[in-house]
């Protein structure tokens, strides 16, 4: 379970998060919606431990552990995964090698057996099939020369293989056509289960047609200003975010 209490954070002394309270129980998917500049990406970076984001108050625990005290790689080992809004290119680094190295680092940290190249390829091919991706996805360099849609799908491929217990999806739907969007949603839905929870950050309701959230929260000016069921997303789609800051 993810528990965020009174979380405040700054970037270069500018306050972005102004007191976030949010609980995501195991097995649930929560959507975070909100206008540009509301602090959605900041929230995902603070949860995954990016440098440059200073937590000034509040607490975050995941499965009872103090998430904020952990290094980014320790959070990954604990089961946290961030699907980047802008996935990063790693020139010269093969995708298969990258994902296997990551997977084995996480497995080591969890006290599990490492996967050899053959075992990994088997798993990876299965995931690729599930996500309707081309086979050469594994052979190419990480995100280098990938289209926007391919980059996003590569994030989902990594997620499928790393099998996190908490997935933070930062606008994974942006720049995707409807077919790609469905594939991404399938990837997330495939992980759904009692030990998987997710924070889906998005601008648009359309992703939530395919990943149906348990709860929807509206983030505005660094605070959660409304929470509700999936119907809240539909309401926002119809009326926009105007006036929410004041609510």
């Amino acid at each position, binding site marked *: 379970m993810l528990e965020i209490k009174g979380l405040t954070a700054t970037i270069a002394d500018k306050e972005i998060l102004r007191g976030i309270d949010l609980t995501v129980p195991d097995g649930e998917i929560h959507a975070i919606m909100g206008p540009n500049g509301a602090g959605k990406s900041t929230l995902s970076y603070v949860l995954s431990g*990016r440098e440059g984001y200073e937590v000034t108050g509040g607490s975050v625990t995941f499965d009872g552990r103090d998430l904020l005290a952990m290094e980014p790689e320790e959070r990954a080992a604990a089961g946290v995964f961030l699907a980047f809004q802008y996935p990063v290119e*790693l020139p010269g680094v093969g995708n298969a090698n990258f*994902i296997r190295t990551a997977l084995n680092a996480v497995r080591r940290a969890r006290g599990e057996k490492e996967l050899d190249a053959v075992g990994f390829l088997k798993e990876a091919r299965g995931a690729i099939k599930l996500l309707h991706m081309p086979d050469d996805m594994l052979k190419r360099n990480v995100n280098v020369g990938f289209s926007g849609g391919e980059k996003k799908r590569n994030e989902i491929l990594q997620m499928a293989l790393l099998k996190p217990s908490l997935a933070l999806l930062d606008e994974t739907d942006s720049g995707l056509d409807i077919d790609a969007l469905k594939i991404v949603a399938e990837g997330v839905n495939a992980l759904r289960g009692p030990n998987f929870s997710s924070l889906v950050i998005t601008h648009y309701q359309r992703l939530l047609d395919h990943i149906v959230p348990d709860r929807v929260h509206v983030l505005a000016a660094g605070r959660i200003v409304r929470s509700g069921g999936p119907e809240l997303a539909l309401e926002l789609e119809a009326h926009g975010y105007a006036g929410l800051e004041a609510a």
Partner: protein
Amino acid sequence: MPAVTETIETIDRLSGGGYKFGFETNIEMDFVPKGLNEDIVRLISAKKGEPEWMLEWRLKAWRAWQGMEDPHWARIRHPRIDYQDLHYYAAPKGPPPKSLDEVDPELLKTYDKLGIPLNERAALAGVAVDAVFDSVSVATTFRESLAKVGVIFCPISEAIREHPDLVRKYLGSVVPAGDNFYAALNSAVFSDGSFVFIPRGVRCPMELSTYFRINARNTGQFERTLIIAEAGAHVSYLEGCTAPMRDENQLHAAVVELVALDEATIKYSTVQNWYPGDSQGRGGIYNFVTKRGACRGRKSKISWTQVETGSAITWKYPSCILQGEGSTGEFYSVAVTNNFQQADTGTKMIHLAPNTTSTIVSKGISAGQSNNTYRGLVRIMPRAHGARNFTQCDSLLIGDRCGAHTVPYIESRNHSAKVEHEATTSKIAEDQLFYCRSRGLSEEDAVGLIVNGFCRDVLKELPMEFAVEAQKLLAVSLEGSVG
């Protein structure tokens, strides 16, 4: 500072860095007295049982050296070297072993520890090794099987005695005795190294490799390597180097000469891991090396691949002289500097003949407070119609206290020549590191992965057997460089 980095730095302080080969072999050694004079040159020659012509050749070099000054144009700094305060010859005591069975077990153990078993049954399949310990070759494996196809692979001191015609014909023909200060010094006092001869039309059935180990204190290593590939011959050769960890600097001044005749190919790879000094810049090897290949024959090819992670100072420019029409020169280099290391390295591609081509791919990685310079010359001579060169020169900076410098010299005297130079300088981006760490990689592993990716174009040129080793070496060399 992240906890992981802190731990690694603590271990670094305790162990003197990630350098794994810094142990010393305790063995009785035979030294010539410190200092350099004509008598020492004569003594080394006598110890090797050399013929008169060889001694004369050395003495000529010795006389030339006396009138020379050490070069000051490179971007390196070090205190004056006292050339009279060094031993110029150090070898394990006793008569030279005639076979592996006679080699001192202590030495065999040393090479086992270095991961180079000399026992042919335990050796890496398909790789023949010449093991040079300080001033002498202690063993050369697979000589018999190579001899069956006419390949000569032996210590150069032996070649001088057994194959004098070949040595006389080619020694100093690519790097003349008076070529430069360090080459002259080497020519006067060189003690051992490898000799390779691949006869006409033979494709060498094994990888050949020489493993250089400096062990003795206050001793310089001056090795000499000569590789000749006759028409249509083909050989892949690799050298590796390590030394114990010591607080004082040690000098290594080698000369390597390659000769490729018509349609011959020589692929020369180096994994240089001399002791780089500690994190405060104490100790380490001064690696002042002259390497040059002559593409004498039509359509011959010489390819240099180097992975340079060691040495306090590296000064070397493996070069190609493209004399044969349609010949090809290649230089692929990864140079890593960390802490206080200094590297000034690159290549020279001299296009003399028509339709010659050269490729240069250099990847420099600087970390800590180190300085890393690429210095390269591409010279197209008037007769080299249709010559082509492509140069790619990339620098990667880790941290904000190191330096990367690129000094290309391009001289074209032929209008039909085409010369391209591309250069980039980048830092490991924060977002790349975070991306890797968010997937579970430690900071150190993330740097290793990104650096290996950066060097991929060069690493893929290494023989398969050594590529993995080189990748690990890169990661170890950069330990403690982030955070």
